[in-house]
């Protein structure tokens, strides 16, 4: 039996499609139509990964509440938001509540599967000791690709999967300018330029929160970004 995944989605057609697709990928997937159903089921047993829609039936913020609930019960449970709401504000709220990733509903099933696989891999690798070849070290920066973990002077930077891939892209070739398209491709993200800009900003903030003197990501106007060598 594969890993257990729960999908909380009020739209039955989408729920059915995702459940079927994920089952086909080899996961043990259950779908729940409301926050109440999900909470009841989770009270019995927690799944290994949860995919939540924000608006649940007549609760516009039901997904957020559920996420908070789950995070309270388990700090390590991977949570992915999959929603039609794509405003920056929602993304930030979702991630701040402790979700590991935030996907828009136009994400394809394959990409969703890839994200899920990445998250599971991360959990796996966090359990195992880090192997040397997958670690990129750059001054105070330490990037463990297997664990999808980035530390600065030994302190962990809480990046999302998307953000991790973006930093990964930059750090792999320090000094090389990566344009927005490249960053988007690496992060398997299909968004506009402005979103890339805001992602970069968020990444910077997260670094600065840990290390106030941080200025590793340099903007090359009109082109893109690069990791300061």
């Amino acid at each position, binding site marked *: 039996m594969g890993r257990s995944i729960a999908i909380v989605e009020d*739209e039955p*057609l*989408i729920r059915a*499609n*995702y459940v*079927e*697709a994920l089952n*086909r990928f080899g996961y043990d997937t259950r779908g729940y139509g409301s926050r109440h159903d999900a909470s009841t089921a989770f009270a019995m047993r927690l799944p290994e990964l949860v995919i939540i829609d924000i608006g649940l039936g007549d609760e516009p913020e039901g997904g957020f509440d559920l996420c908070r609930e789950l995070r309270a019960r388990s700090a390590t449970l991977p949570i992915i938001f999959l929603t*039609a*709401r*794509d*405003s*920056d*504000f929602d993304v930030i709220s979702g991630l701040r509540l402790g979700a590991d990733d935030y996907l*828009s*509903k*136009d994400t*394809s*099933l*394959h990409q969703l599967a890839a994200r899920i696989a990445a998250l599971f891999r991360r959990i796996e690798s966090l359990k195992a000791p880090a192997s040397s070849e997958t670690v990129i070290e750059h001054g105070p920066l330490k990037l463990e690709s297997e664990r999808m973990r980035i530390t600065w002077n030994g302190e962990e930077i809480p990046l999302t999967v998307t953000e991790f891939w973006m930093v990964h892209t930059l750090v792999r070739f320090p000094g090389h300018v990566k344009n927005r398209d490249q960053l988007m491709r690496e992060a398997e993200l*299909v968004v*506009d*330029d*402005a*979103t890339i*800009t*805001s992602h970069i900003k968020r990444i910077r903030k997260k670094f600065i929160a840990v290390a106030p003197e941080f200025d590793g990501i340099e*903007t*090359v*106007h*009109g*082109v893109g970004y690069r990791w300061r060598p």
Partner: protein
Amino acid sequence: MTLRRKLLLVALCTLALPVAGWLYVRQMEMLLREGQAQALEASARAMARSLVVTHAPLPQGGGAWFVQETPNPITIDGYGDDWAPMTPWSQPLGARGKLMLAEDGNWLYFYVDVRATHRVRADAGDANVMAADYVVLGLQVGEQQRRYLLASAAPGPVSARPLDPPAPGFPDLLVAQWQEDGSGYRVEGRLPRKLGIDAIDVAVHDAGSVDEPIASWRPLLRYSPQLSDELAQLLTEHVRARVLSPDGWVVARSGHLNAPVAEASDQPGWFASLVYRSLLANPLEDAQPWADEAPRMNLADVHTAGGGGATALWRQGETRGSVVLAVAVPLGGDAKDGVLLLEQASRAVPLLANRALFGLLMTSFGVLLVAGLILLTFATRLSVRLSRLRDAAERAQANDGRLDGQILFDRFPMTDAPDEIGDLARSFERLLDVVGGYTDYLRTLASKLSHELNTPLAIVKSSLDNLEHAALPPDAAPYLARARDGVARLGQLVRAMSEASRMERAIAAAEPEDVDLGEVVRGCADAYRPLAGMRELTCQLPGSPLILHCAPELIAQALDKLFDNALSFTPEHGWIRLSLRALDDGAEIELSNQGAPLPAAMQGRLFDSLVSLRDKATPGDAPHLGLGLYVVRLVAERHQGQAMAHNLADGSGVAFVLRLHGMPRQRLGI
């Protein structure tokens, strides 16, 4: 015409006030004058009656020779120099002659001046004297008369020949002087006063005319001190009286015209006098013919009084600002006896009238000033308020129906006013609220719609994904691919729709920093060069760094859009120019490119969202929704500037201008 000017014109209506006042003061003055005239006329009639009752020596009716008083002795020489002061009052004698009579203490002088160009000369003793020019002088004392003939063949002394037999008291010989010049001759002589002559007859014979000399006996009339004394007894103060003969000779005179002595402050100034004369007292006679010393007053009014009725007349006084009232009444029942003329100087009337007029002028000027000021203030306030309203409406209009910050926070101006402008402002506010709400609805419609579309799209998409794993007949594969393509395009559309609102939020959240704009533009130009292909890309930057408080990534993003736009419209071997210029309060980035000019219809909405100039997307390609220039505009507005597009003057292409003024500096801390 502005509202202010109109109101000022309306304010001119208040000018009617002083005009009405002026007419009123005029009327008052007329009444005052009328009353004064009636009073003086009454006293004149009373005086005339008492003169008759006391049997005062009044002048007799009919013609008379007036004997003037000569101030200086007269030399008998036949020349008129001595007579000069009396000449204006000479008495006509026949058609061409003049007679003057004068006397001093001892003598009665006579002076005959005859204009005769054709002369026939003969001495008085000559036999042909009756055919020559001569003068007959007749004297009457009591009932007795005697005539003398005066003639001369040459200038010089002449002796008169008596024509009548001698009579007691009359001189036998009359000596005179005869002088002539080209225009005529003059006879001058004198008689002793003690003769007591009562009447004189002067007849002039002109040899050139056939007319016989007509004897015209006339009594002598003199200025009468006795009558003057009687007048003085009847006279009140400040009144001058004159008794005139029916011919207008002044027979008696008494009194002085000195007006009551006024205080210095009461003395009207020249301006007041001028105002009085020009505005109030139009019908004033000249003072000249009324001079005190004139022995004769040959005035129309006097003659009218002589006809039986009383007349009153206002004339200017001798002193400045004074007015003299003159009343003429006939003496006795019959006007043949002469006329009594009373004059009274009146300063009160002009003073009163002047004061009234001046008070009126000052008051109405003050009222006019106050009214004008009030109206001006009112009109100015009204137009200021109206222009504020207009400005606010225009500002709202310039913002495409969205209310700008000021209106949003301060509300629409003047909505608290309780009057009609307040009503108008409130209507405007409501209208703009509705328009703003509707515009907001329209603007957010795309993102709302995209949000709603996302769910069904996800259903189709995930179903298609699942379908790939279902056992399908091979025929179905192309349809599946087409459905996938359609969903992909639909997805792009929806994303583009939501992108606009996301972008607005992203742009609004951008944080400014101090950046050298030249570096940003140079970096962009370097990045674009590989993309330009065969096209020529030039970049003009100012020599010195151009520091601006801005969000460089936003500007770079806007430039990306502009460049992308320029690239798609520039022909294969065309040119693209990027330039940066410093402004007084910011910077201006211009990106011009070769290409077709902008269609006129698009000028205004080029920078709106979901507007595109490009051809319909080719199949398989993503449709273009014209978000690029909208982003440019948002970026420009975020930097308190504006984005503009215009055709180049030479028609070779199009220029897009990004005018930036820098973002407001944020305060650090709370």
